[in-house]
């Protein structure tokens, strides 16, 4: 039988949203997924208030020096197996902040990322697709 934790994860992924040095655009679009137009709760996707309850981390931003310890701590707290989905171009390659003295990302320098959703910001439909694609690879 397949790992039941994975089966549970796929059916109704609980998602924790982690923003580290982002412009907030991707973050607002993530929140929009909950609103009536996109309504991801019909897929069982729920935004949770603590990483300890999360199956997947939706991460945004380039991470900066002050926020890095917090990012690592959140990842530690998230029970494994978990998915990490990088939302936005910042999470792919630091975007325009590549030469900043303070940007230390992207996320895959510090933790395994399962999917990248490029875009500035990616459209909510793209984010849903990213989550679905990441889940289907499990």
């Amino acid at each position, binding site marked *: 039988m397949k790992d039941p934790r994975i089966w549970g994860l796929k059916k109704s992924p609980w998602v924790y949203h982690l923003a580290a040095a982002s412009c907030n655009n991707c973050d607002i679009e993530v929140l929009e997924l909950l609103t009536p137009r996109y309504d991801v709760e019909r897929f069982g996707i729920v935004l949770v208030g*603590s990483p300890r309850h999360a199956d997947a981390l939706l991460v945004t931003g380039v991470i900066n020096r*002050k926020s890095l310890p917090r990012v690592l701590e959140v990842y530690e707290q998230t029970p494994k197996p978990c998915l990490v989905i990088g939302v936005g171009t910042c999470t792919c390659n630091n975007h325009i902040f590549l030469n900043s003295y303070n940007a230390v990302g992207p996320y895959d320098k510090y933790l395994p990322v399962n999917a990248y959703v490029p875009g500035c910001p990616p459209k909510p439909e793209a984010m849903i697709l990213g989550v679905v694609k990441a889940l289907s690879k499990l």
Partner: protein
Amino acid sequence: MSDRHVVPIGPYHPLQEEPEFFKLIVEGETVVDLEINLGYNHRGHEFISPELTYDQIPFLVERICGICSNSHPLACVLALEDICGVKPAPRGAYVRTIIHELERIHSHLLWVGLAGHFIGYNTVWMWAWRYREHILEVFEMITGNRNHYAANKVGGARRDILPEQIPQILAALGVAEKKTLLLTKAVLDDPVIRARLERVGVLTREQAVAYSVVGPTARASGVDIDVRRDDPHDAYADLKWNVPVLPEGDVFAKAKVRLLETLESISIIRQCLGRMPEGPIQVRVEEIPAGEGIGRTEAPRGEVFHYLRSDGSNRPLRHKIRAPSYMNIASNVVAVRGGSIADAALTLAAVDPCYCCTERLAAFEDGKLKLTGRDLLRLSWAKTERLRERMP
């Protein structure tokens, strides 16, 4: 002193998506002081800007903030136009004004939704954000993107608004107006909301002036300032609108000011669409001469200020960016004092903080959470329930 406890709020502010860390110093249920710890969003825009050319900088500053995405490039472009002594092409000025006001509408609806969520009126959240979608669709139609529109350029606008797009814009404005009137009436008439928001988080006029706050935060404390009227740019000198100013300084006044402003923005856009001049949307600007320029505009949160110093080359010597929340968030220190913990988080959110604007960087602070963001949200909802039960 011995009874003082520290209640940290953060990194997940219940009302906002951006991380920050507030330390509330409390005695029993009353907040006596506030420490604000920023730095979690700091990305270094002022450092990156001198490496880029003047054509590239508007794209950089657009990404200071995702919600007031248009205000920063507009102020930056106005600073460059100030150095050159150039005015934008008339039609371009109108296009820029329309996009600027559309941004105000979507940003205020966003705040109203989050405020509703926070005090426990989730229907308000869902409604405000659902009807905001019409504005975002208009943005996608006229600029190509729901956010980060890349609409501004030295000398005018980058894209025109076409005649066939106008019916959809007017339809979206009609929906926004109807729903804003509905929300305004709901807020003003609901005794529970009034009890929840009135006399909470008061910022007096003297405090507002001492902290040099801007935007709705200032206007809700009796300070009558509006950059569009005081230092007009683009089409604003030709247009008429009211600037709502209220004396109370509480969260209720801030909410009212934003709702009334949304209605004024709708009126401004209709005026623009009715009198848009024909002609090109850009004047060609070949070079930025040596000099200094200041560009400012009234973003949804208040005055966005850009200063640029050029040396005649195609990259700046210095680019100073000051977002409105930088001034407004600092005033939270006095606004929360004397209030209760259940009210504190609402007060902090009432200035409509945009932390990414404030620091252009993000940071998290992790502390021992006595009350998590979730706890504070529940405290707030519980207070609303208690008030509701007390109502006849």
